[in-house]
């Protein structure tokens, strides 16, 4: 337990940052127009201001209440998001099969335990299943494997 609710404080700060940025961009880059005929910037500027205001309330409230230590895992998001990023980088130049292998192997590390046999079986199964569903079942034009160089 903490004296203040740091989770809400961080959340509020994040909302203030996003809200302020959105408003600033709207005011500086897009025309605001008038209330009678609003330009593209008016609505976003207002929304940013509201978000900033809500963030402020969160920060102020967070001082008044106790908070619990949030349970933050570092490795799970890293491997899962890293796997997706790898998929995004690989799918176009190298094709579907390498992309599937990349996301399956990288994201499975998030368990922090490597099981070589079950991982290999899973990879094999997915490499058969996914092209079957998406390429042959749904008729998507996805090259299975290619070498761009």
């Amino acid at each position, binding site marked *: 337990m903490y004296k203040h609710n740091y*989770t809400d404080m961080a*959340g509020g700060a994040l909302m203030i940052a996003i*809200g302020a940025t959105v408003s600033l961009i709207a005011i500086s880059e897009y025309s605001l127009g008038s209330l009678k005929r*609003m330009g593209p910037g008016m609505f*976003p500027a207002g929304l940013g201001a509201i978000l900033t205001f809500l963030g402020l309330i969160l920060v102020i409230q967070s001082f008044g209440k106790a908070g619990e230590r949030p349970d933050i895992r570092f490795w799970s998001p890293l491997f*899962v998001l890293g796997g997706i990023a790898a998929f995004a980088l690989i*799918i176009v130049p190298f094709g579907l099969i390498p992309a599937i292998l990349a996301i399956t192997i990288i994201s499975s590390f998030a*368990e922090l335990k490597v099981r070589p046999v079950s991982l290999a079986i899973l990879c094999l199964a997915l490499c058969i299943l996914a092209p079957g569903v998406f390429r042959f079942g749904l008729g998507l034009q996805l090259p299975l494997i290619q070498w761009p160089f």
Partner: protein
Amino acid sequence: MELLNNLGLGLGVALSLTNLSYCFLGALLGTLVGVIPGLGVLAAISMLFPLTFNLEPTTALIMLAGIWYGTTYGGSTASILLNLPGTPANAVTCLDGYPMARQGRGGVALFMTTVASFFGASFGIILLTLFTPIIAEYALSFGSAEYFALMLMGLIASSTVSNGSAVKGLSMVVLGIIIGLVGMDTQTAAMRYTFGILGLLEGVSLIALAMGVFGVAEIIMSIRRVNKADIDPESVKLKAIKPTADEVRRSWLPMLRGSSLGSFFGTLPGTGPSIAAFLSYAVEKRVSSSPERFGKGAIEGIMGPEAANNAADQTAFIPTLSLGVPGSATMALMLGALMIHGIAPGPTLITDQPELFWGLIMSFWVGNIILLLLNIPLIGVWVRLLMIPYNILYPAVLMFICIGAYASGMMVLNVWMVAIFGALGFVMRVLNFPGAPLLLGFVLGPMMEEHFRRAMVLSRGDFMTFFDRPISSVIMILTGLILLWSVWSSEGFRQRRSQRSESV
């Protein structure tokens, strides 16, 4: 008589071979994904959405609806056998369903929830059939001011009434609307928040957003937390699913009460199936002559809530289809799906697209019958699925998400978006922000802005237009009251309730 004709038309559409098979496929896949712990209905719909791209709009919607109520059915399986609610609406089912499974009556519990779900859904469908056309006709006179007010009420109600902090819910709605701004402004053709990325011209992909926030973030949170099932396969064999005569007798009234409660709360913005299920459980416990049995495997404790959440699932379509204003994130996703298929939702939908509307409604019924037939013999299969270790399931799910994202528009950008929104969803979850209001704001945002700007043009820049028109002023006042109520009840009351819901 006209109603009968329409129902006949709908039945014809729903029973066509294509629609029937996609309804079946949707219900099957929905149940499959719903059974997997940690993947809720939003993740299920967004994951499976790419499968509907090449279909006719009516068929696509029928399949999506099948996925949707399939998920609700599937969710109850995980609740009962694992004490892990597959969807939030099934959380209450854990309270008495899991004890039943522990007593070796898991099969009975599964069978009876299937019956309750079907009963509740049928109840909801009847109301949907009767009321949607009436409301839609009434709504034809609505102008932009009314629509803006309605959407505002929907957003504020859904972000403040649900569990947790109202301020956080509202922040997520606003953030959702902001994300919805990205792309070309429809009225002036100005580029907003695209940062020079061409792919963002048409805005952020709904699918990528939903898959990131609800699929990827959910998986990140579940890794190394979901344990392998501890199920006794004997308790769910087909011969073990027959309820006793006493249990059947005690199930009728809870189902009826649950369906009525669910139907009412399903139509209101912000309440929906979860709250209906919780209320139904509370009511059953209150009216029971032996409340001490609750929590220890009382059949009433699963029949009421399951009927309630399925009835609510169906009646939630009333505002969505009649007004084009969704009351929950799931409905927002369905509406988004309609728009992606090029259909403008609103009160004219029923008259413009009668095949779609009546076909969809009748397919609900067909789909629920399919589920009834599907679930009872397949209970054993779902159980086996639950016994697959999570470390095999989640990479497979992630792969499907990635391919689905890429397939929606064949753009790598969408895969990156999934990663970005997955990260956002993860941060939100760690900081205790709810995800559903974000999606609702995202879908409603562009429509809201359009109606707001149009109303302001018509009133020559006078804000009072929202209060001068009778219908819109009533809605605005109601919205104000909801907001006031949420502020008033925010601190002590809410903190206690959110703590309780976290411990469930």
